[in-house]
């Protein structure tokens, strides 16, 4: 069920990256389905991610858009010291490719590579996170929404903080 075109999938991924980097949080939220999944699994082993978020630890397991909205509210309200200041970010996302996978409901998913550079304007510290995305999309009237975003975080020793905007 690879119904979104490569061009539309690529445009949506670039849009998501740009909106995160521009801190246009509400527009970013609008990219997601109401019953979306945003998941950053942890690593069980050197080369195996956890695969059962009900029995194993995830970095982030956000089910539904309200869970994403909680994250956004925390960033916008500024009551968390973690958000003073937020890092400046720059997400680089590759072109997505469709890879067949019989274990997934749609028999496949859109895969891409990402790098997120972060810069703390107060300390001048830089960090870089990188990994892979797996996306699933749904069509709502004439637009495509993100139904699932599963983030593989390759460099998983977290420096101080990790949040939705860092990956």
């Amino acid at each position, binding site marked *: 069920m690879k119904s979104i075109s490569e061009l539309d999938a690529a445009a949506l991924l670039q849009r998501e990256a740009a909106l995160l980097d521009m801190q246009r949080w509400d527009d970013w939220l609008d990219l997601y389905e109401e019953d979306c999944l945003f998941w950053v699994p942890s690593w069980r082993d050197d080369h195996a991610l956890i695969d059962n978020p*009900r*029995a194993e*630890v*995830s*970095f982030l397991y956000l089910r539904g858009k309200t869970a994403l909205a909680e994250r956004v509210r925390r960033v916008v309200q500024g*009551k968390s010291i*973690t958000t003073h200041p937020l890092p400046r970010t720059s997400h680089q996302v590759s072109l997505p490719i469709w890879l067949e996978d019989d274990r997934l409901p749609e028999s496949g998913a859109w895969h891409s590579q990402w790098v997120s550079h972060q810069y703390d304007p107060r300390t001048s510290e830089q960090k870089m996170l990188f990994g892979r995305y797996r996306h699933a999309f749904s069509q709502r009237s004439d637009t495509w929404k993100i139904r699932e975003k599963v983030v593989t975080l390759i460099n998983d020793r977290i420096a101080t903080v990790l949040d939705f905007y860092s990956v």
Partner: protein
Amino acid sequence: MNSSPRTSAAPAQPLLDDRPEDGVFRVHRSAFLDPRVFEMEQTRIFEGGWVFVGLASQLSKPHDFVTTTIGRQPILLMADEHGHMGAFFNSCRHRGMLLQPAPHGNRRVHVCRYHSWAYDSAGLNQHISEREQGRYLPGFQAEDHGLVPLPRFARYRDFLFASINPDVPELEDYLGEASHFLDLMSAQAPQGLEFLPGKVTYTFRGNWKLQIENALDMYHFSHVHVSYVELLKKRPLLPEMGGPPPTGAAEGEQGSFSFGNGHAVMWRSRSRASETLLAQRRERFAPHMSDAQLKWSGYGRNLTIFPNMQMVDNVTSMMLRVIHPLAPDLTEMRTYCLAPLGESPEEREARLRDYEDFFNPSGFATPDDNVVYEHSQDGLGAIGAGWTQGYARGMDRSDLPARNPYQDELGLNEAAWTVGPRSLGDETCFHDAYRTWARLLAG
């Protein structure tokens, strides 16, 4: 990054200004900054005494292994073919290469990747490659070639401890009355405690003692974690989990016990756990507990086993963290979702979500603490500003009864203590850790 080394001739003296008779308790800023203090901490504290190294359930099957570090030294824990647990330096006897690089696994034989010397899961040498052709002298032949065991390795309930220094008290004597609070953790898990799979490790640019303080510090909660509390207030109440932390008249009591050797617990009598959740948990463990344990299992508790282990039981979920200092201003934290074996899948899932929300470096509480440590580290760099005033809350005991109202039910005879309203924010529970620290540094 503010990491310029402070290079005066010797560490500031005294690092600890502890004069109970004058009502003074102060820690010098250089305790957090000075690389020579850090070096002494590594040698005399982390590599000089008992430290937590793992859970017994990590070595539940024959040939299970776990690697870790004590101070700067690599360690290999193994269960042999009979399930007997051992702790060894993770270093090949030949040229000292790291024998087992994997974090955990199951292996009958560990083969060094350099010249293929091999060891079994009891640490015995199984093979020295081309030994016959090696023209070894009889002196070598007569030597033991097995892995070097750690001088001390012991288990208390679910918890494994080891010491590189042989000259330490028995583990139970080291733990002292803090063992009652380890008992309470284990009593909640009749089938044993386990770490849920999934590695979470993070760093903060701050001194490890900031973490020691923070976990016993109730004073910071309503200030640093306000965004988490407000978020919980906005969420629909989850009957099977709970709501926001109790406030006002419902907030209950807070108190602490200090056990000597740096161990302490900070407790509060109310948690955010719902009655449904408490009833569910009690159903599983009540038969295995005393009445006092049953009562205290519903209290929130932050326990520090000095120097490297902290457990937080928020009742809704439990976490265990291992503190691994890397530099005066850099600390690595290994954090685990601690759970009783044999829990239902529904309980397990609810526990995980609560754990991730609060304790993860991607959660709503821990990152705020981490950022606070980093700003503290930077601010403590103001050596010229002199002593801080952060160890004084709770020192006036004139309103306290002569005896702690709870020590009898807990079976405590020697522990120092305080008790008060949740807003007390006791800081005297840090004192014992610093007294222990100063005593160990003095050598």
